[in-house]
């Protein structure tokens, strides 16, 4: 079962705006085996959602995939026709969107929107589809699903909408599930239940999952591998355990440091100084250099290559041979 379901090679997604090219994703590669979960973490705006949308090929104008390959089950999705893509979407690859309010159509009941998916891909009749929908809603812990199924998105709380999105994505047992901040709006108990649900799905039907989240706790709960992104670049990629225990990249390190924990008595949280660079006029060299506490001249001059350290891939000068030389 170690066959690769998804392989992303040097993906580049750019936004060609009037003011210049925004390199939302710049040369990102990773792979995903069947039944495996990959966590993508990174600061806001680092290109996590765009990575997901690129896989689904649902990029909004003026976004375009400017290069790279997205190989799903051995075939490059970028070469598929629209019709073939439609067959894959919703059925084999499903996605949970980040914005639950605007991602649900305000003029249809949630039941209608979930059923649509089921009817399309599972060829069930109306009644069966409805039953299945209620079942799905129950699965994501929507109270009184028989009643709620006929409600409209605006009548639901933020978390409920999120759960509706999840139910929709899960309804067809996809081979690959992309979750863009699936539990952001959820409280811990529901979050726990959803994570359980996702884990079950994984073990039952061997679904692979891409879990995009800012919550490192969630990542550590569900995923095997994690990709840390920063300003459209992959900064670190490796096993969750390793990365969280011994982060190699200064950025990962800083991220982990800034998590508030209950035991933490410190009033001020530690922060990463500075700001995410503007993706249009990016600094030369390592993108994180301006905020990095270890940065040296070389970091500001050129972009480091990815180095592999015991299976943990990292893009940082610190781990290159040159680093020592400069020293």
């Amino acid at each position: 079962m170690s066959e690769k379901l998804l392989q992303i090679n040097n993906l580049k997604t750019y936004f060609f705006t009037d003011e210049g090219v925004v390199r939302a994703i710049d040369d990102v590669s990773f792979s995903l085996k069947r039944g495996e979960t990959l966590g993508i973490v990174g600061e806001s705006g680092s290109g996590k959602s765009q990575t997901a949308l690129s896989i689904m090929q649902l990029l909004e104008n003026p976004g375009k995939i400017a290069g790279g390959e997205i190989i799903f089950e051995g075939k490059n999705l970028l070469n598929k026709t629209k019709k073939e893509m439609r067959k894959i979407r919703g059925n084999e690859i499903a996605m949970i969107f980040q914005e639950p309010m605007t991602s649900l159509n305000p003029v249809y009941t949630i039941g209608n929107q979930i059923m649509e998916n089921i009817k399309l891909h599972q060829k069930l009749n109306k009644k069966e589809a409805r039953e299945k929908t209620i079942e799905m809603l129950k699965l994501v812990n929507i109270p009184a699903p028989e009643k709620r199924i006929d409600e409209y998105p605006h009548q639901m709380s933020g978390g409920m909408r999120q759960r509706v999105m999840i139910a929709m994505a899960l309804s067809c047992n996809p081979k690959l599930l992309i979750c863009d901040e699936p539990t952001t709006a959820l409280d811990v108990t529901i979050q726990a239940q959803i994570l359980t649900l996702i884990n079950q799905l994984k073990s039952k039907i061997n679904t692979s999952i891409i879990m995009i989240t800012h919550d490192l706790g969630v990542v550590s709960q569900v995923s095997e591998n994690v990709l840390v992104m920063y300003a459209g670049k992959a900064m670190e990629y490796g096993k969750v355990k390793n990365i969280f225990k011994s982060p190699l990249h200064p950025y990962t390190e800083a991220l982990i440091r800034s998590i508030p924990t209950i035991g933490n008595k410190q009033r001020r949280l530690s922060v990463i100084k500075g700001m995410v660079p503007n993706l249009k006029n990016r600094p030369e060299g390592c993108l994180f250099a301006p905020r990095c506490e270890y940065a040296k001249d070389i970091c500001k001059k050129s972009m480091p290559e990815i180095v592999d350290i015991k299976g943990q891939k990292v893009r940082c000068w610190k781990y290159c041979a040159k680093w020592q030389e400069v020293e």
Partner: protein
Amino acid sequence: MGVEYVKSKEDAIFKVRNLKQWFNTDKKDENGNKLYVKAVDGVTFDVRYGETLGIVGESGCGKSTLGRTALRLIEPTEGEIIFQGKNLMSLSKNEMRSIRKELQIMFQDPYASLNPRMTIGDIIAEPMDIQKVGDRKYRLKRTIELMKLCGLDPSYIRRYPHEFSGGQRQRIGIARAMALNPKLLVCDEPVSALDVSIQSQVLNLLMDLQEEFRLSLLFISHDLSVVNHISNRVMVMYLGKTMEFAEKEEIFNRPLHPYTRALLNAIPSIDGDINLQSDQLLQGDIPSPINPPKGCVFHTRCPYCQERCKSEKPEYREILPDHNIACHYGEKFI
């Protein structure tokens, strides 16, 4: 360390008494009576000067509705809201408008609350524009300041909401809410969409503001660790009702309500593997707020449920000084 907030009850900046928000539904019960979604059902609390009151609770328990109703963004079905001694319910629309300068809210859904046809510069400056603060130049300067404060690159000022990522949108919302230096800020899940680094920046920011302007916060969040970090007192809600309300330390160190206990158990963290299969996790479905269970609303999922809980509504009472709870058997955990 931190801010010294005024502990005296009398000196509260914002008092809410028996607030109710019932939404109409099209449905009727067997007897033909109209059914309501009792999103907020008789909530009482106050926010003291300079305090952060955290509100936690399961999704759909009415937190957002509480926040919006408390600011009269939706007319309450019932209840009293007193801000700095003024009863908001008795204010006219105009008076309400001017008082909103002091009362700000950040919305849970960052995207929907941003007008797609306004540049974010305009969005952030709007409250200042409405309340006629400064001239155009001043407002622009302040907007840029706010953007920086919230970790947004000022060069994005001419962009439109759809050009931002989820977290960036959230920060726009924060910047907007901060624009007027309000006295009371309702934060509806302000950091839930933020990545940790920004999250800590924002939390720090909120705390700085609080220190500087004696800002009072009503902090709605599902993230207990965040609430733990920022709040002075915490209110736990379930199905539109208050379950427990106490000082932060009390809640986190000595949770007395079974629901609070369950919540605390479910927090994931990056090192301590919590066991997702643990029986500490709440089981069962959340009851529908249209048809809340009789007796204690939590009894259907309560691991300690007794016969009495099923029929008798527990009184919301002060079980310990400054520690309120709605449970018949709260004493058990003292």
